[in-house]
């Protein structure tokens, strides 16, 4: 009996709460990145290996605009717009010609793109990490720590962006177009829906979402040319665990995995905590390959 009491007393409750918050914050950012990825896959059947680089470029755009204008929020808006346009340009030049070809081609093309974008960033901005300043510093007391408000704000903003997009998808005309094009590309065209442009817009939106995460997350990590790599990997794990093309699943998976990693880093180093996500992936592949959070396994 005593050992049980000792066990429960030894659990660091305050740290668990802190890690829960951290997990949710990271999870929301990851959800934002993964949403874009799963959207692009679900609607266009394209695996966008360059997604992490769009995240990274968003962060860099944020750095640049912040440096010239001093306003974080302006930086956020401009970064999203610029990267969305870049995304549209990429889709038109690189992905449209590949429409209808073997999916292998888009995997290779986006992979090549990620190399180009990464090295472009390295070339333009150099290897030294930059920092984005938070728009406000302000903390509240959580146990013995000062927990920054900013972190909660970005979690909220990410949720808002995802939620806003979901509403747009459900009610707007464009949302109907996207859903129609996803279900039956041919009939959508026969109804006058300009499907190639729908695809371009979807890619641009996905890119914009990645850019937003880049800017929002920038203050928490250094901005450097390789930051996309870690995140794209995590995002892919999230997308597979949540179910490819399943928006709700990706969000749940993102939070789930981030929470697990946050808890794990109480006991092991962060570099090793990522193994948690790998384990989640392996378990998913073993038992529910269509996704952990898919309601009916197909």
């Amino acid at each position: 009996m005593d050992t049980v009491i000792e066990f429960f007393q030894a659990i660091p409750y305050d740290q668990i709460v802190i890690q829960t918050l951290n997990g949710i914050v990271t999870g929301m950012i990851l959800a934002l990145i993964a949403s874009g990825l799963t959207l692009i896959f679900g609607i266009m059947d394209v695996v966008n290996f360059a997604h992490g680089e769009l995240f990274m470029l968003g962060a860099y755009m944020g750095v640049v605009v912040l440096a010239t204008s001093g306003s974080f929020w302006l930086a956020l808006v401009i970064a999203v717009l610029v990267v969305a346009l870049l995304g549209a340009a990429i889709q038109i030049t690189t992905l449209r010609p590949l429409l209808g070809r073997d999916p292998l081609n888009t995997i290779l093309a986006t992979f090549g793109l990620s190399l180009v974008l990464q090295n472009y960033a390295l070339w333009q901005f150099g290897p030294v990490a930059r920092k984005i300043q938070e728009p406000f510093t302000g903390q509240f007391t959580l146990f013995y720590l000062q927990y920054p408000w900013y972190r909660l704000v970005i979690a909220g903003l990410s949720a808002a962006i995802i939620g806003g997009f979901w509403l747009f998808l459900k009610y707007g005309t464009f949302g109907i177009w996207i859903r129609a094009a996803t279900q039956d590309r041919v009939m959508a065209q026969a109804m006058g829906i300009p499907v190639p442009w729908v695809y371009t817009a979807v890619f641009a939106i996905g890119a914009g979402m990645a850019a937003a995460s880049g800017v929002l997350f920038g203050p928490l990590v250094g901005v450097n040319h390789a930051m996309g790599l870690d995140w794209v990997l995590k995002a892919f794990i999230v997308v597979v665990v949540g179910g490819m093309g399943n928006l709700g699943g990706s969000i749940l998976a993102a939070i789930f995995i981030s929470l697990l990693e946050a808890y794990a880093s109480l006991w092991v180093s962060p570099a090793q905590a990522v193994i948690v996500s790998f384990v989640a992936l392996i378990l998913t592949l073993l038992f529910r390959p269509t996704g952990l959070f898919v309601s009916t396994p197909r």
Partner: protein
Amino acid sequence: MRNRQPIFYWAGFSVILILLIVAPLVLPEFWRRFLTEILIWGLLAMSSDLLIGYTGLVSFGHSAFFGLGMYGAAAALLTTKPPSLWLATVYGLVAAAGVAAFVAYFSTRLRDIYFAITTLIFSQIFYVIIFTWTEVTGGENGLTFSRPPFAVPGIFSFPMTSQTLHWFVLAVVTISYLLLRRITQSPFGMVLQSIRENEARTRAIGYPTERYKIVAVMLSGLFAGLAGVLYAVQNRFAAPDFVFFLVSGEVVIYNVIGGIGTLVGPILGAAFFLLLREGLSRFFTEYYLIPVGLMFIAMVIFMPQGLLGFARRWLNR
């Protein structure tokens, strides 16, 4: 592929082989090593072609097989005295095969895109393990060791100079090429190609496609691991960088540039890419990947058959 006369093929093959044998005698040291490296990366690319070109599976996991081959060899060379080339090869192949079996088990049940993603994630898993398990793998810094002699204990022993190493590598790569060629032209290889064309139909005819895919991944992993062993012997170190998935990506680039499904194409692709990198890095320093990447994307869009395919069509005019 069998559209030219076998005699021309073997004639061409012999000519190239002779050139490669003679090369280290005439080339300066730097280019000698460069040529050897091309052969090693070519072997890695060939192993990848078995999956991409013949089975239709894009694998980003080759860096794991390559890396484990490297580390396996390192383990042998560091732990046994005297360091034995053959033991290093065995250890490397076993390690690579083990990893390949593991990856194969999970990935082969998935279709195209998922397969690519899971192999990528698996190579990252091994990267993280190797990177963080410092006591065993040397972590970030990797492992260094000395080059073993080319020896059969008790019978003879030659030190492995860069020349003898080149010939050794050439022999291994040539034999591997011939083996792979035999495999792809065998009934087994035909089934793989049928899987590439239409897996559902192949399964409907009655072939257990999963098992074929698993064997394909393992074979591919073995040859990739062999390349890793060769690399370890040549460079005398093993580092986690080689397990990072970007290396797999580069290998896939060699395949596409050279022409998938040709075995020879990937070697050409590797040569082309490495030469290009050498050349461009004189002008662009580290940013050579930007023009190369753009070129690669253009090739995927306009020349999906790769250099070899393009050359073939040009010759057939």
